[in-house]
């Protein structure tokens, strides 16, 4: 298949917060940047982030980035890389001020500074009293952030390829990444985007689960592209279940609700988090709160044991004024999806798949790394930022508000690193690319194109996969159940190989997009399953009933999953921050 070529200095795949922050850095420095996105940029999932962006500005109270770092290391249950967490927390304030200068409409304190609210897992003075560290634009911070970054990219004249779907990376024999193939959803045209560097910023993959807060578009496209290029995925067993998704609908209710003083109740009206986390109660880490809810439901303390069983989030005691000014979006969502006005009634909620802590392993500059013979090796020409990357700043459990921070700090870091390489002429020049290399990256496009029209529909396989993940790889896991789950996934993968694309048309063929997305979802699900089975301990979001304890002797390490032969390997956790003493693992108490 001969395809057209377009050439750029940098190609960024994904136009959420991370991709757009990276694009902005590069476009402003004069590089020729292409920003590819399968949806119009402001439709990216960053838009759904609600509560805020965490950073130690110290506006609400005394604060220190080292305290933020301590909380993040602890929240990550000690498998976050401490050099990167240090960078995240230290650079955070600057990255947030930059957003403010760009025009992000943050809520304000009386003195005119950016408003900050308490979130889960935040403490002062290394585990002391509750901190208020999450900067917010009401409860629409993601929307405000994403639109601001899009507006800045308009100003910077970034080349945006809106509604283009990336297929696969193109690599040479040495493994260097030379660009990506993609097709225009509107016309069906297939193009090879050749670039001196590529940045994956494709976001999460919550759609591997049946019940998720994630948008339909969160299909792990970067995860699929990475594993097919022989690049490992790291810590894929670590999926965050957010304590408060609206029961049935799955839509997110921000942790900011509890930060503002809301709390969870069971069917007896009991504030049960007092039993599980006596110190910080409802503001314990998300993994802790989600497990507590699951245990309440298991004990028959839910409101609807026969239907979508759930607990409730009580906000009415906060008063109408606070809810209207600080949580207006939540009120709207709750009315729409639960038929409940939180000013009057409690919102039915249940733990819901929310975020992938795992992803494509990178170093502190956001360069993608692979690992062999006990050492990290940079994959030339490839960066990864945002949820698709595993830097790892979130380890086994992400703290609320650290995701938006991760997007802008590491989107910016990737941009800065590429910019510096460019200035000292170390950015590789565009080289010849063989037709074979391009053809290889079109393999699955061609497979779907040539599929018969009589096979199974991808939609059926997707539903079945989501059910397996929900049943066998949920909040609580056991080896026996996961073994079964892996067999079920293998069977589905075989069915996927024989499935049919029934619509072969070129113009806005959304069935083609969904089929290609399903390849990526399936790759993500398999990576999750194998990694979850391999980790025989309980840590952070990964909770094994057959291995209920954290095992620091054997498991302070990252899991690496290679698609070839479903191989699992391990990579050390960085415990060498630059400016502070490392934080040693302690028992996590909230």
């Amino acid at each position: 298949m001969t395809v057209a070529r377009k050439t750029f200095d940098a190609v960024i795949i994904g136009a959420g917060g991370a991709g757009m922050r990276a694009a902005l850095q590069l476009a402003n420095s004069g590089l020729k940047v292409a920003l590819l996105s399968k949806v119009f940029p402001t439709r990216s999932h960053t838009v759904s982030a609600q509560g805020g962006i965490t950073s130690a500005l110290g506006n609400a109270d005394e604060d220190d980035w080292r305290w933020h770092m301590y909380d993040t290391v602890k929240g990550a249950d000690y498998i976050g890389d401490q050099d990167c967490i240090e960078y995240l927390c230290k650079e955070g304030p600057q990255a947030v001020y930059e957003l403010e200068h760009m025009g992000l409409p943050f809520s304000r304190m009386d003195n005119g500074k950016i408003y900050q609210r308490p979130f889960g897992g935040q403490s002062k003075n290394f585990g002391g009293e509750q901190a208020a560290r999450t900067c917010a634009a009401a409860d629409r911070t993601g929307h405000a952030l994403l639109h601001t970054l899009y507006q800045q990219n308009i100003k910077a004249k970034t080349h945006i390829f809106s509604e283009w779907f990336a297929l696969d990376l193109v690599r040479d024999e040495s493994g260097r990444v030379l660009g990506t193939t993609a097709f225009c959803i509107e016309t069906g045209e297939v193009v090879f985007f050749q670039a001196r560097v590529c940045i994956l910023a494709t976001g999460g993959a919550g759609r591997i689960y049946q019940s998720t807060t994630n948008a339909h578009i969160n299909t792990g496209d970067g995860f699929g592209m990475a594993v097919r290029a022989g690049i490992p995925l790291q810590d894929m067993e670590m999926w965050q279940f957010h304590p408060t998704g609206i029961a049935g609908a799955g839509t997110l209710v921000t942790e900011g609700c509890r930060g503002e003083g809301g709390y969870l109740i069971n069917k007896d009206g009991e504030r049960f988090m007092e039993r599980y986390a006596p110190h910080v109660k409802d503001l314990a880490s998300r993994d802790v709160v989600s497990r507590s809810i699951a245990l309440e439901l298991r004990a028959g303390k839910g409101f609807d044991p026969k239907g979508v069983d759930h607990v409730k989030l009580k906000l009415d005691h906060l008063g109408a004024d606070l809810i209207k000014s600080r949580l207006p979006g939540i009120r709207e969502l709750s009315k729409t999806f639960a038929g409940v006005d939180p000013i009057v009634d409690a919102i039915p909620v249940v733990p819901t798949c929310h975020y992938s802590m795992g992803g494509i392993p990178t170093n502190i500059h956001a360069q993608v790394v692979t690992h062999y013979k006990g050492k990290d090796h940079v994959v030339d020409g490839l960066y990864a930022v945002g949820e698709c990357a595993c830097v790892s700043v979130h380890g086994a459990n992400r703290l609320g508000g650290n995701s938006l921070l991760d997007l802008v700090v590491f989107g910016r870091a990737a941009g800065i690193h590429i910019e510096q390489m460019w200035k000292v002429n170390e950015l590789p020049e565009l080289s010849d690319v063989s037709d074979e290399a391009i053809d290889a990256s079109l393999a699955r496009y061609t497979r779907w194109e040539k599929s018969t029209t009589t096979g199974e529909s991808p939609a059926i396989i997707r539903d079945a996969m989501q059910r397996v993940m929900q049943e066998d790889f949920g909040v609580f896991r056991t080896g026996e159940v996961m073994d079964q789950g892996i067999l079920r996934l293998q069977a589905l993968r075989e069915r996927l190989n024989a499935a049919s694309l029934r619509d072969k048309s070129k113009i806005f063929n959304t069935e083609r997009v969904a089929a290609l997305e399903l390849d990526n979802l399936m790759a993500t699900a398999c990576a999750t399953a194998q990694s979850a089975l391999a980790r025989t301990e309980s840590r952070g979001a990964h909770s094994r009933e057959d291995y209920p304890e954290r095992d620091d002797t054997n498991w302070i390490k990252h899991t690496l999953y290679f698609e070839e032969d479903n191989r699992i390997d391990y990579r050390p956790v960085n415990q060498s921050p630059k400016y502070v003493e490392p934080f040693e693992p302690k028992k996590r108490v909230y």
Partner: protein
Amino acid sequence: MTDSRIINLSIYRYNPETDTKPYMKPYELSVSTANDPMLLTLLERLKAEQDPTLSFRRSCREGVCGSDGMNINGANGLACITPLSTLKSKTIVVRPLTGFAVMRDLIVDMSTFFKQYERIKPYLQNDTAPPEQERLQSPKDRAKLDGLYECIMCGCCTSSCPSFWWNPDKFVGPAGLLQARRFLADSRDTATEKRLEEMQDPFSVFRCRSIMNCASVCPKGLNPTHAISEIRQQMLDDET
């Protein structure tokens, strides 16, 4: 087994590769009486269960990304936050947003819409060097952005505006003007005069006839007509 009822839909279909002209296609779907699904869920089910070629945009499914604006029983709205119970007609009629060229089925070409958005320079302009920390803004000044910054660019308003139908190249349209007002209202923006000057012609702002279709369809409850009248007021104040 719970009880179910049959829902009738009539959906606008057009595939430029195979159809010489658009047509309305009838569908039937069985829906449990215990549930009140959103229209988007019904469309997703139709696509998965009956017709993989049915095409529409969607992403967040919770009314914040703005992908699934469409014309539902004659009024623009987002399919993902339109519950079945609010659609009282015997047959639910779903068409693409009006005023834009149809690419396929419920998917329209929004390039004129985005062009008008870009035209108003939708980014903060401030000619002073940024301070080391944040620029200060009082809660009162920040409150002036409420009702403006929340726009999700779904196009429901602009698509329902006859002034935009007539002059999509010259009239900025409700969404673009709402955004213009968002920056005019921002105490941190110093380009007010220039912004007003650039819209100072018979079309950009003044084609608005205040018929308020925009405000009545906005799925976020925003009021572009009000924003436009504020821009006009600012223009008058500017002149005097």
